[in-house]
């Protein structure tokens, strides 16, 4: 049984993963911005769980000043957490980000700088108690510079880079870092886009991630076909990438 701090459990893949955790008896503490939504998610997880009710606290990825207090609250509620899962992030299409510079800056801060800051805070706490698991959702968008994900992809590339380094540096001290790179997954966040080939559903992705957390697999692509897709894309010559639209 894990004691999990979960950032992003209200929607999409975070919703599916937190459900699997609650259903098998993991203890959860939810963090997020919208306390009403968090309350509904906590109730859903409590009904699915094995008796214990799920609590929640406030955390806004746009306000790093609050990170310490949020993790203190989680620690107090869980009696010292051993696992941190972050699925929350911002997403927008490249057109939107090119048009709206303020929004682009917010996205870069939230997805990269502030997520790293939150991981750093959690890392220190976990290392102080002998280790634990840090599982963070990055994206296949960070694997190669591509036209439709120039800004979003850059934020995720930075995050993936950081997570890999963390795993190399602290694995020996007991901190397991897991970087999840979802391909296109059909959730509320991607509902306005037409699903490309190999689009996945959140539930199988959640099951894969849960296995990776238990086994300590440092990098997973979900659905796994995206490992091959991205392998091909990473090896495509620049001249080709400049021509194609994806």
């Amino acid at each position: 049984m894990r004691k999990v701090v979960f950032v992003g459990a209200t929607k999409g893949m975070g919703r599916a993963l937190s459900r699997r955790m609650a259903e098998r008896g993991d203890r959860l503490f939810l963090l997020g911005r919208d306390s009403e939504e968090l309350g509904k998610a906590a109730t859903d997880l409590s009904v699915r769980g094995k008796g214990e009710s799920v609590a929640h606290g406030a955390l806004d990825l746009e306000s790093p000043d609050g990170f310490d207090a949020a993790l203190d609250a989680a620690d107090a509620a869980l009696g010292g957490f051993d696992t941190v899962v972050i699925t929350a992030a911002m997403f927008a299409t490249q057109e939107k980000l090119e048009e709206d510079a303020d929004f682009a800056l917010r996205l870069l801060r939230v997805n990269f700088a502030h997520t790293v800051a939150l991981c750093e805070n959690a890392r220190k706490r976990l290392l102080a108690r002998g280790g634990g698991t840090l599982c963070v959702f990055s994206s296949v968008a960070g694997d190669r510079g591509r036209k439709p994900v120039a800004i979003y992809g850059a934020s995720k590339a930075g995050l993936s880079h950081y997570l890999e380094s963390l795993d190399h540096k602290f694995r020996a001290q007991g901190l397991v870092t897991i970087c999840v790179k979802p391909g296109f997954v059909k959730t509320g966040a991607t509902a306005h886009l037409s699903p490309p080939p190999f689009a996945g559903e959140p539930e199988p992705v959640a099951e894969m991630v849960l296995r990776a957390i238990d086994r300590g697999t440092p990098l997973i692509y979900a659905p796994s076909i995206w490992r091959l897709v991205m392998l091909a894309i990473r090896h495509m010559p620049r001249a080709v990438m400049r021509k194609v639209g994806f």
Partner: protein
Amino acid sequence: MSGSPTKRDGVLEAWGRVSRPAAEVLGEDIEAITEGSPLSRGLGRSYGDSALPARIGGSVSTTTLADRLIAFDPESGELHAEAGLSLREIFRIFLPRNFYVASTPGTSFVTLGGMVAADVHGKSHHSAGTIGRHVLGLKMRLADESIVWCTPQERSELFWATVGGMGLTGHILEVRMRLERLPSPWIWSRSERVPNLKVLIAKLHETAKTWPMSVAWIDTTSTGDKLGRGILDVGRWAEPGEAPSEPPRQKPRITMPDIFPRWLINPVTIRMFNFLWYWKHWQPRREGVVHPEAFFYPLDMLARWNRAYGRGGTFTQYQCVLPMGNDEAPVEFLKLLQSLGGDSFLTVVKDCGPEGQGTLSFPREGISLATDLRLGPKTQGIVDALNAFVIAEGGRIYLAKDMLTRPADYAAMDPRVEQFMNVRRRFDPELRLRSAQSVRLFGDPPEVS
């Protein structure tokens, strides 16, 4: 972190693979996605046009992402959840706790809202009725955008018009429903080969007295003494002593690829399939513990089985109930179907118990027959002829399956339509909530005025 509902222009498909351009509104917040919307849709398992927009390119709210549990009381079995929750999730979460819905359709790929809107029935109809009997309350968004609760006691007219009302009385946002407490999550089942439809119907009546669940599959291609030979399945929840100690696990699914030619299903392959299906049950009788998924949802293991009709191939299911009293009627129905050339891959027969309280609820006491028909130039004629027979017998058809029935035929079958329309008009004078089916059958205007 994107919270607001999003709209996507595309094409929505019904289970019979008929489709219509539509703007699909998707999102986790069910109150937000239904605001200003003319129609809600769940997992799209209705065969015909019930979950397609009234107008080409019209918007439809898909509720499947709104699937949170709100409460469950293990004492009373009362479940409260958002309308997009799928029956498959209820199976996964509650079956290991020895609770399940008292009435289930033949697939678990349906949402709570869809189950209420079609007032679904299943193998347990003769003992447990339709799902409407077990619903305790509905939270709805009405045509005037107000959000209200209705129950069998409060706003009862609206409640019963919504049960079986195909989503035309309002958007179902949340459902409170009583789950049945089970002795174990496994099924004790008995199946037997039956030589013809006449014997089969006698056996359905007989087994109904002692078995809470039953259904039969029949071979529609056999004739003479063997007309309508089939396999009768009866069952009940297994007692703890009979069942394995572990709860059943959901089985993995294989997804059918969309690669088949449209001629794959033809009179010859249908005859072969029906023959093999009958003789696959080589023992005269089998009895024992079976997996509930195999018992309730044999076709769910093959995801997207509707692709067997081939690329671009469309089909419908004709389901009717013929009232109690004339046991010859189903036999005549089958003969008529054969004479019309209505080759069917899979035909299901079930005895129904008393009619439910839903204003437009489908089942009534008698025999229900459901048969798959490929859509082609002949199909409208077949459906018209079958409808004429059903009208003469005093029966009716099931809206969740229908695609081709003519409005005059439906009105002749179901005098309750008038009462249903009165309730609709009271809560929605402009008939703002509508579907392709309501335009076809109830004469709703296709364009919003």
